[in-house]
């Protein structure tokens, strides 16, 4: 494309200042328009004034696009956002859309939002009504768990975080015992503390559990159980014994072929039919079993990927050292295979956490379920947006942190130099 002027290194002194000022002018115009509702170009005909920032910015970017200008910052700018006409247009569109969308977001989230008060009538602004979150915060975290007993959930999680924290700092020798305690002893102590019924603690039935703490409880237990089951299934699928191999394949493919919601339906309405009349298994436990088996099938496929990626030589070397099947897998194969599939494992665990809200199907209410309950409360109608934005933020923070952690772990454990 040859316009009338062709900026080059010789004419850099004339064109770059003009170009930069045109670009700044166009951005300034959109900025002022978005934030102060002023139209700097109002003197122009209306159609033109609408497109003027785009045209000015485009010409400006054209003028400053000088290859090998010798000015370092200009070169970096051109390379990254202004390498050709199409890119310049994309850049302008992106900048304009971002600038345009900031004020309404800012208004809704902060400027026009209400933070103080304790009923819907205190929400007078046009923005979000964060009072809703504030009033219901306790319910969103603990569900219908009695207020007076909530310290038990807090204590359980506090102890968990403390032990995890301490585990990072103790010596290698002690670390083993800490991890064993965390995996085999603590979950059951914690659940006893929360459910109560002994040691003078009041019994709280699982139907009252809910909110974010339930999300954590279900995720933690499902992760704890689905990992070993998944590894066993993966080994079973790779087994040379036909019966074990085909049972594993059938089991894995059955769970992977159906949606979780039907599995939960099954645990709620179909499973009780399979038990002797009068046997009652707690809803929470049934849900846990369903989620665990479901995610274990996915975990098995991930682990199988790692097992298949290992060279045959590893198996042969282990066998030639006289190792049996279990020793070979535990000491040689699995440590390498699992390391290979850390991203896959992390994704499966993330999927598990993201799947927990589905337990609404059987009537258990974690965070999303509690918001559904709160927004249908006659005193708080019309608060869906605030509720779901809040829940979305909470889940986003958890999931984003998990994915970041797994990326770091992957880097740390990588043995490739």
């Amino acid at each position, binding site marked *: 494309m040859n316009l009338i002027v062709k900026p080059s290194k010789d004419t850099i002194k004339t064109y770059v200042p003009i170009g930069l000022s045109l670009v700044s002018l166009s951005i300034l115009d959109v900025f002022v328009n978005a934030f102060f509702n002023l139209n700097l170009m109002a003197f122009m005909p209306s159609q033109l004034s609408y497109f003027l920032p785009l045209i000015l910015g485009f010409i400006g970017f054209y003028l400053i696009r000088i290859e090998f200008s010798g000015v370092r910052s200009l070169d970096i700018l051109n390379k990254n956002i202004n*390498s050709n006409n199409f*890119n310049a247009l994309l850049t302008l569109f992106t900048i304009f859309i971002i600038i345009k969308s900031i004020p309404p977001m800012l208004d809704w989230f902060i400027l026009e939002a209400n933070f103080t008060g304790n009923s819907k009538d205190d929400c007078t602004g046009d923005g979000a009504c964060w009072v809703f979150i504030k009033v219901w915060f306790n319910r969103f975290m603990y569900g219908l768990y009695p207020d007076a007993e909530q310290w038990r959930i807090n204590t359980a999680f506090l102890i968990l975080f403390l032990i995890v924290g301490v585990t990072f700092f103790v010596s290698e020798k002690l670390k083993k015992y800490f991890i064993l305690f965390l995996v085999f002893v603590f979950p059951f102590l914690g659940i006893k503390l929360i459910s109560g019924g002994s040691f003078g603690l009041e019994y709280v039935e699982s139907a009252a559990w809910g909110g974010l703490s339930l999300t954590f409880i279900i995720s933690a237990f499902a992760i704890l159980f689905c990992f070993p089951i998944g590894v066993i299934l993966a080994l079973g699928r790779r087994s040379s014994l036909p019966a074990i191999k085909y049972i594993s394949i059938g089991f894995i493919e059955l769970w992977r*072929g159906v949606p979780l919601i*039907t599995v939960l339906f099954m645990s709620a309405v179909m499973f009780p039919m399979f038990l002797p009349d009068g046997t009652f298994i707690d809803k929470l436990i049934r849900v846990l079993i369903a989620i665990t088996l479901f995610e274990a099938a996915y975990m098995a496929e991930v682990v199988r990927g790692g097992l298949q990626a290992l060279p045959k030589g590893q198996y042969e070397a282990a066998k030639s050292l006289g190792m049996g099947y279990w020793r070979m897998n535990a000491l040689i194969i699995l440590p390498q295979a699992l390391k290979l599939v850390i991203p896959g494992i992390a994704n499966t665990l993330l999927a598990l956490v*993201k799947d927990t809200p589905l337990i609404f*199907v059987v009537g258990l209410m974690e965070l*999303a379920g509690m918001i559904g309950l709160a927004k249908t409360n006659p005193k708080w109608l019309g608060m869906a*947006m605030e509720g*779901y934005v809040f829940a979305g933020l909470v889940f986003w923070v958890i999931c984003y942190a998990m994915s970041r952690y797994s990326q770091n772990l992957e880097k740390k454990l990588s043995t490739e130099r």
Partner: protein
Amino acid sequence: MIFKKFSIENKKARDLIPQAITVLALLSIIIYFATNAQINMGNRGISFGFGFLNQEASFDITFSMIEYDGSHSYGRAFLVGLLNTILVSVIGIFFATIIGVVVGISRLSDNYLIAKVAEWYVEIFRNIPLILQIFFWYFAALRALPLPENGISFNDISFLTIKGWYVPKFIWTNFNIFLLSVIAAFIAIYFINSYATKQREQFGKQLPATSISLATLILIPLITFFFLGVSLTFEYPVLKQLSSTVYTYEGGVSIIPELIALALALSMYTATFIAENVRAGILGVGKGQKEAAASIGLNKNQILKLVVMPQALRIIIPPTTNQYLNLTKNSSLAAAIAYPDIVLVFAGTALMQTGRAIEIISITMLTYLTLSISISMFMNWYNKKMAIKEK
């Protein structure tokens, strides 16, 4: 020696024992469950069977692609649910693919801003549970739309309101002829392309196969409009007053908000995973391939079309198949916002009315299994077609 036969040293016996134990354990669990189920059903006076599928369903479904009302059978209701599931999955897959490919390519853009925006799109939508996104669109975003009387109008042809999106209805005459012409066009395109490939491989001639195919696809159906009596008119939705305050639209097709929310959430969520697959696929093509292509004089578009994409597709297709499967299974979350898919209609309402938990849940699960297996079989076939043919 008898000990030798059963001792742990004997490879055959050693293999047999764990297998026998597993099979026996599995069998005993199945038998235990089956006897319990039989006793329980006997107690409640119901017998196992699928006869109920022919009984009158006597409940209504808000959205159906085939004729259905309460007087139809449970089997028909199942079909309505299944079609609704397929509808939302197809829409979701279509948009997820488009968004996913655009975002995936954008992530590799040399424009820093575009790459960052695409990256944040992926980070945001991937890390929020799908069910929350569905709730957000349905309960928060779509509820903010205006009532029918002030619906957002697109040129007075289609209206977006809180009750759904009203679009013009297509009224065809001689639709069959049109359909046949489209099929004929596709067959013609197949022959054009194989002829072009032959010309290229044998004589080194480059035919503009893409433009000719496109022209065929447009021209052949167009001919039917002028010569074979096919015509298409539209029935536009018109605002109508029901009572002093209640308005609605008449005519046209109404796309219910449940479908919009579900399709939006499913496609935006799944698109993030497809975007990552696309990105990984393009990155997976070696730099040497691009340089080699450039050095034999291909231009940028030719490199992308002839060298990079065919190789990238091989990496992209298998994980993307998985995402299509996931999307189809995730469409079952429809039950949460009362979109009448197979789970809501069949495993929800029909189960509630008949109480036949075992039959209904098994049918539902088998349906999903069949859907999953058929999609993965189709994709395996496609994958095989695309795979490197080693000479």
